[in-house]
């Protein structure tokens, strides 16, 4: 195995340009599971851990190398709440938001926040420089993204006008250190409510029908909240697998959306 410990982004981009199939290593919380569990043996690995630039964070730009343990204490309330549910303290100290985005698991804990924020993914290659991909265009399927083989995820770009009222919740089969069965993130701003969900479709999704319904209401009544739950349950596209059932995920998605809308009003 060839291992490049890149000191800066240019070095990493050069390595990736030369070896587009090289695996990228940041926190290693996904890659090392593949190595140890599935006996995946990458031929080349480019480590991004020493690249300080990827660890920079501002209110509108979160470096791909920012760890969950930093996001837990960050300014974006919803992202902080989501970060708090990622793995164990050890995993949170290692795992990064860039890794979460790159792995693009439907259960990725950071992804509903990105969807709700209408954030974009900043990627860079040596050949073509930087491009900024809206999240809808970035996540294309289960663990599939539109990242090119020679590209590296450099940041999550956050619009500067995202609502401050943000609420996150995640259902799992135990009360800590658990993979998501359903997750939901609600933002409430001047332009109305945004509802994003995880683990209920191949990619993170926005519950656009429920948002439209809710944002057309003059006042959020109990009936409107019930309707949110119903509409969200209908518009998600979950599957049955060894972690849960389609029916439960639909139900829980609706319940979480309703509760978070309610919570965001308090």
């Amino acid at each position, binding site marked *: 195995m060839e291992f490049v410990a890149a000191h800066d982004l240019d070095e990493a981009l050069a390595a990736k340009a030369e070896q587009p199939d090289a695996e990228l290593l940041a926190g290693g919380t996904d890659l090392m599971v593949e190595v*140890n*569990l599935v*006996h995946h043996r990458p031929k080349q690995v480019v480590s991004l851990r020493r690249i300080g630039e990827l660890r920079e964070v501002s209110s509108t730009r979160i470096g791909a190398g920012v760890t969950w343990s930093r996001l837990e204490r960050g300014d974006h309330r919803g992202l902080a*709440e989501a970060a*708090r*549910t990622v793995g164990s303290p050890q995993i949170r100290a290692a795992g990064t938001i860039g890794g979460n985005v790159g792995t693009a698991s439907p259960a990725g804990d950071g992804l509903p926040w990105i969807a709700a924020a209408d954030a974009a993914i900043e990627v860079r290659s040596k050949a073509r420089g930087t491009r900024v991909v809206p999240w809808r265009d970035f996540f294309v399927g289960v663990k599939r993204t539109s990242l090119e083989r020679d590209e590296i995820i450099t940041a999550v770009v956050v619009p500067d006008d995202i609502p401050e009222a943000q*609420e*996150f*919740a*995640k*259902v*799992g*089969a*135990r*009360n*800590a*250190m*658990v*993979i998501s*069965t359903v997750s939901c993130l609600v933002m409430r701003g001047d332009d109305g409510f945004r509802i994003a969900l995880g683990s209920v479709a191949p990619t993170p999704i926005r519950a656009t029908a429920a948002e439209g319904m809710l944002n057309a209401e003059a006042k959020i009544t109990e009936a409107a909240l019930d309707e949110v739950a119903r509409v969200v349950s209908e518009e998600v596209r979950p599957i049955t*697998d*060894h*972690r*849960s*059932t389609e*029916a*439960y995920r639909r*139900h*829980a998605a609706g*319940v*979480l959306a309703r*509760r978070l809308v309610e*919570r965001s009003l308090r």
Partner: protein
Amino acid sequence: MTTPTRTHVTGGIGTSVRRPDGVPKVTGNFAYASDLHSKDMLWGATLRSPHAHARLISLDTGPALAMTGVRAVLTQDDVPGLPLFGQEEQDQPVLCDGVARYWGEPVAIVAADDEETAQRAAASIIAEWEPLAPLDDPEKAADDGSLFRELKIRRGDKEAAGTVVVEGVYETASQDQAPLGTEAGFAIPDGSGGLDLYVTSQWVHVDHRQIIACLDMEPDQIRCHPAGIGGAFGAREDISLHIHVAMLSLATGRPVKMEYDRSESFVGHVKRHPSKMWYRHEADADGNLVKVTARLLLDGGAYAHTSRAVLANAAFFTVGPYRCDNVVVDAQVVKTNNPPCGAMRGFGAVQACFGYESQMDRLAEELGVDPLDLRRQNAMRGGDPLATSGQVIDAPLPTVEVIDALEAIPLPEPLASDDPRLLPGGTGLTTPASKVVRGVGYAVGLKNVAFSEGFDDYAEARVVLTRAGVEVHTAAMEVGQGLVTVCQQIARTVLGIENVAVVWDDTSHIGSAGSTSASRQTQMTGGAVHAASVGLRDRILADFGGDELRNDGVYRAGERIATIDEICAEGPVEHLVRFRHPETHPPDENGQGDVHAGFVVAAHRAVVDVDPELGLVRVVRVDTAQDVGKALNPQAITGQLEGGIMQGVGLAVMEELVVDHGVIRNPTFTDYLIPTFLDAPAVETRIIEAPDPWGPFGAKGIGESPTISSTPAVVAAIRAATGKALTRAPVRPQDIVGI
């Protein structure tokens, strides 16, 4: 017991002596089996069946043999002796015999210079399979007569009938023991054609018997040594990699190490039997049990292991600790292509308890009486016959006392916090306190101690006095439960000498201690150590005409008459005992007879907070009262009671091997969930001491009971909170929501 308890010995029975392995385990200095190594060793790896049921058409080991660093590739043709193993029945091929009967069945083994090469070599072997339809439905297996054992119990009047009748069908899932230490073994050639084998085990002698048969070796050629175990819970009762690592070492003439990773561990050891149970309880109008009718169906998976004994436990504890004169039980354990099942803490009694305690709650509801009063009213005591086998309990059985002690523990305060760590859903922030409903549930469980049904169950121990102190020699496996401390305490108390070391001998140097299972070692090896210590002490006292042994010698009337050096003038003095419990007998054709050697009763009360709308649960508290006979080491007992409860909570709310067409879908700790610290309830314990007639100082084996009634207590509490029937453990969120 006639032995007086010495009060002047430090570290004797009844005190919470600190265990010698505690600090090394916490600081990382304890040598587990997986830590064993030598510089010229090879690594072993296993190729496993990717099918639950398939015919092996061809196996090409060429690619593996061609790899640099590969020293041996072995298949079933290379097994030197008996090609089959098994603790009770030798029915499992050492390596695939042409048909794979479960997913993950070992097919070929490889030894190579390093772990990576061994694994890559195993993966490079080309196996051609013809998939066959797996028999994965236990009910179909029962219909087809694919059985490991069937047990019918007929007691009393089959025409008897009660006026109040409740019926229910209950299911429990397969649970993994999930010990933190995975399977590991180390084999070292002795230069004369034999081996020293270091294995994780609960019973080295029964491993040894199977290993020498498969290797076609004389008993002394293979010496099994216990290696450090990171948890067992039944998973170390059956052979896993033991024969494989020995074969690789014999084939290469080199030391060989094998170690399973977590995913391989999930397929590499036997599990708790999943069950389905059909129950009918009949009572008179006053609530006295009149008749219990039940059918129990356990899925044993592909090979026998201990399925026959597990079934017997489930069947004989069909009614639990309650009096009932008329009992009909049809119990079967079927053979399927699902993962093989065997021993796990509670051993059949866990499944039955979920059934009968669910039924007792239903009966109480039907009668409109308090569920604890109903249990007290029907409680079995010493002198009563066991409802199933009719065996009269010839020892105290404090069923009512444990219920009373449990009920007296104050209930926790109502939920008064929005701290997410105290709410269902935990850090997932799913649940506001306003959505939470509290429930309280109870269960009582009965378990036998030691081996039953006429098994020649014994434990050997040799107690030796040397100039340096006392040695207790045994082959009894310390698996983390604290046996070593108990052996020390017993020897100290009897001999009056504080300096006691426990020495594990290999299979050539001491007889069997029997299995570290069935809650038996405190009573069996503890009994052997007690008897050997008494024998040694009495001989020394007789030889010197003394009346008391102390740290510094023999005393008569308070005066020392011989020093330890004088006692050992001609060398160490020792006493060897092979200890047996009272004889048991196989059941007759109606399942009647004195089948068991002893009984333990425990009760649990669970308090849960439930979010009914999302189906999420937080187990707030599980309190317990348990009969321990005599508390030899109160802290160790508390540890067992608390740990057992965690395993019971796991089965109640999250632990389940998801098996689909014979394939385990969640063989990782990502998806096979065990309780975290945040899921662990607070526990209050009450220890009841009703002395056992043959346990050392009256002690009883206590390791399994904490896991038996804790599961139904938690499920009962969730029922109380939600009003749902919840007939299956674990309770899943969708079960509570009802979708």
